[in-house]
């Protein structure tokens, strides 16, 4: 039997790349939730993660660098029936496209953002990125990275994200469950997936040593202050749902019976322009 959500195109990432784990987790999550490929749109940015849309058999839009999130917002706002996934990297989401991620979070548009965070620019052959730790030598920081890295979880929490989680590409089963919860969450959801780059910045062993699961330590994901504290941990790497809260989504505030989803609007229904014209009389 053919693998679910497989386009048949053979994946081409480096052997051992974390992207394989993310791809497997997404396919399994969509299968578990009973989706058909017609129900889902995946939007990808530019980076090694960008090839996800080649392999994941759902509707897809492979956008330009940094703009996957606004493209996805446009899709979701125009047809909220679609489940909209964003595959983006740390360069895509935390550098060139950072503002879009944070604004989508505060707007609470129901897109599900999976950040393939390998803490390096990999597709461009290894330059430092916004989550590369201080001191790391890369091709663009041959004398060591001089910059403080972003704390993406803290950034997203303070931006109003209604669902914030962290996953690890080596733990596919756990990541699958996180993706299922993100998809089931009402509104914007983001999962920062630590996905070490085996070629340019391999920290797999370090992450394995420091990672622990939040569900094992009775973390209350509805407690914002507890979530902030978890996001500030530096010695250990928390995995799981850091924070979740239910708030109105942007699309449900906009759409109504009189205001159908833009993508489903019947062009034959004429605009009541006559009424609108009275202001110019």
């Amino acid at each position, binding site marked *: 039997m053919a693998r679910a959500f497989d386009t048949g195109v053979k994946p081409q990432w480096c052997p051992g790349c974390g992207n394989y784990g993310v791809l497997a987790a997404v396919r399994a999550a969509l299968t578990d939730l009973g989706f058909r490929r017609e129900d889902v749109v995946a939007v990808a940015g530019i980076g090694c993660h960008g090839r996800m849309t080649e392999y994941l058999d759902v509707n897809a839009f492979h956008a330009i660098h940094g703009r996957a999130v606004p493209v996805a917002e446009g899709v979701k706002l125009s047809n909220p029936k679609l489940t909209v996934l964003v595959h983006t990297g740390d360069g895509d989401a935390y550098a060139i496209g950072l503002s879009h991620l944070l604004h989508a979070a505060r707007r609470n548009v129901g897109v599900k953002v999976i950040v393939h965070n390998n803490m390096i620019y990999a597709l461009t052959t290894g330059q430092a990125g916004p989550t590369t730790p201080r001191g790391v030598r890369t091709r663009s920081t041959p004398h060591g990275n001089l910059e403080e890295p972003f704390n993406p979880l803290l950034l997203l929490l303070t931006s109003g994200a209604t669902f914030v989680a962290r996953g690890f590409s080596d733990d596919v089963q756990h990541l699958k469950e996180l993706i299922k919860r993100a998809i089931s969450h009402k509104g914007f959801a983001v999962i920062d997936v630590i996905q070490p780059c085996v070629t340019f910045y391999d920290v797999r062993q370090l992450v394995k040593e420091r990672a622990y699961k939040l569900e094992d330590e009775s973390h209350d994901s509805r407690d914002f202050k507890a979530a902030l504290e978890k996001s500030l941990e530096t010695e250990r790497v928390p995995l799981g749902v850091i924070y979740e809260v239910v708030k109105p989504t942007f699309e449900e505030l906009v759409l109504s019976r009189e205001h159908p989803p833009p993508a489903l609007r019947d062009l034959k229904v004429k605009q009541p*322009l006559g009424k609108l014209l009275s202001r110019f009389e």
Partner: protein
Amino acid sequence: MDRCPAAIKNISAINASPAMFERSELLLLVGGPAGSGVFATGTIAAKSLVYHGYNVFATNEYPSLIRGGHQWFLVAARWNEAALAHRKALDVVLALDSRTAELYASKLKEEGFVVCDKKVASSLSNFNRVVSLPLSQLVSEVGAPPVAVNVAGLAALFGMLGGSLEQLQAAIRSYYRGREKLAELNVKVAEVGYAAGSKLSDRVATKLKCVPRGRRLLIDGNSAVALGLLAGGLSFFAAYPITPASPILHLLAEVQREAGITVIQAECELAAINMAIGAAFAGARAAVATSGPGFSLMVESLGEAAMTETPIVVVNVQRAGPSTGLPTHTAQGDLRFAIHASHGEFPRVVLAPGDPVEAYELACEALNIAWKYQVPVILLSDKFLGESYWTIEKLPEVRPEEGAVVRGSGAPGYVRYKITDSGVSPMALPGTEGVRVYANSNEHDEQGIVTTDPVVVKAMQDKRWRKMVALREEAERRGVKVYGEGGVALLVWGSLKTIAMEALKDLNDVRLVQLIWLEPFPAKALREAVGNRRLLVAENNARGQLASLVREHMLREPDAVLLKYDGRHLEPEEVIEFVRANAR
């Protein structure tokens, strides 16, 4: 005691004749600092003159400031002929500060005069032809705030000119629609102002006519674009605030519930255009509106729309650049930029309306073309067209056309980028049964899968460019308009149409040629329209960008080029002088 006896005497002297004349034209300038109600006064004046039965043109100039500085609003009303643009000589200046009186007194016609509050008049020196009225006093007597001297002054002017108080008050109520208390207060201010002005009515011999002509519209280019997009089936609009394009966002945001469209203010222009691209990919009729700086930011995504063959409309209401430039002033400096913007090569359409009717038609057409050919369409407006007002009888009939869209269920073997003779591939929407829709900003094969195969790469580039065959035919068929007949061809594009039409009234032997489609360029139609006439080109930029297109596509040097690039549109007088000087 009257502080300006000399001034009043002067007016009386000019208009000593007891005979009454009907006023066929009124050119009124309202000026003052930002925040003094210049816009409100000007708009009310313009509306009420339309109600009187005049044809009205109105325009304005303002600084990038919320308070202070100097701004003006100019209203040109004509009885018999169309009011397309204004001439330089003013009939009346309504001065809300002394600076306005000082700046424009010299621009008055021989019989023209300044109307102002006594307080303003007291700080003026050596001014003839000033009518000062106790406006502040009148305003405070009816309990209105000091800013209401603007409406009091306008009403006094209407009193002097024998205009209709009823039509003035109707305009006030229309302007303050939804703010009833404010409306009624201003209606009261108008009553006392009008009464004060009426006492001086014997000093002005030419009186306003009032024969209402029924329902007509006073509409600006920005609103016309917004309405045209709605008529074209717009269902998704995203924008980031920017002068002078924001009024499009404001109007669409205001009517979003009535119209049932989604309007979103994005965090930047990059987000705006990418939201629109995502929306259009999902099946929404999407558009964005911006000005030069925002358009510059959108440029990479213009190529993204082209490569993914996603239909979008980008409205660029040009302002004077480069960089921040003159945020509130007009220019036609983005023509070449619009035609070439973004890296790589791809088909696109650039349209330029010349008046609100064309803005309405072309905004609808832009959406239709975008969807018919799955290309980005750029609508080039500018500050002058966007924020000036014209009287029109009605908007023309237009309707949305869907294009090759697959809804519901797709045929087996459907691929998004099927290679076709026309270059247009049927566009299934995500959610269509039995179909995977894959749009890709990378070069791709028919399925949308990334490719670097030289044969496929060339085939896809050729497929996209084949759209140009039909687009060129559309451009040739609809891209050129001709007005009048003569041995000299005057070529313009965009908002200079109205200026040139106004100039035409004073010119003989001139054929006005207007380019509506700038890309693809209707070379054949233009060659036919110009024939072997002398070719004069006028445009609002520094380098003669339309002239350069003429050289490129017609292999011909224009006989003369008139350029203006000081943030102001060309005046009819400048065009007349240019044509006369270069007619042979």
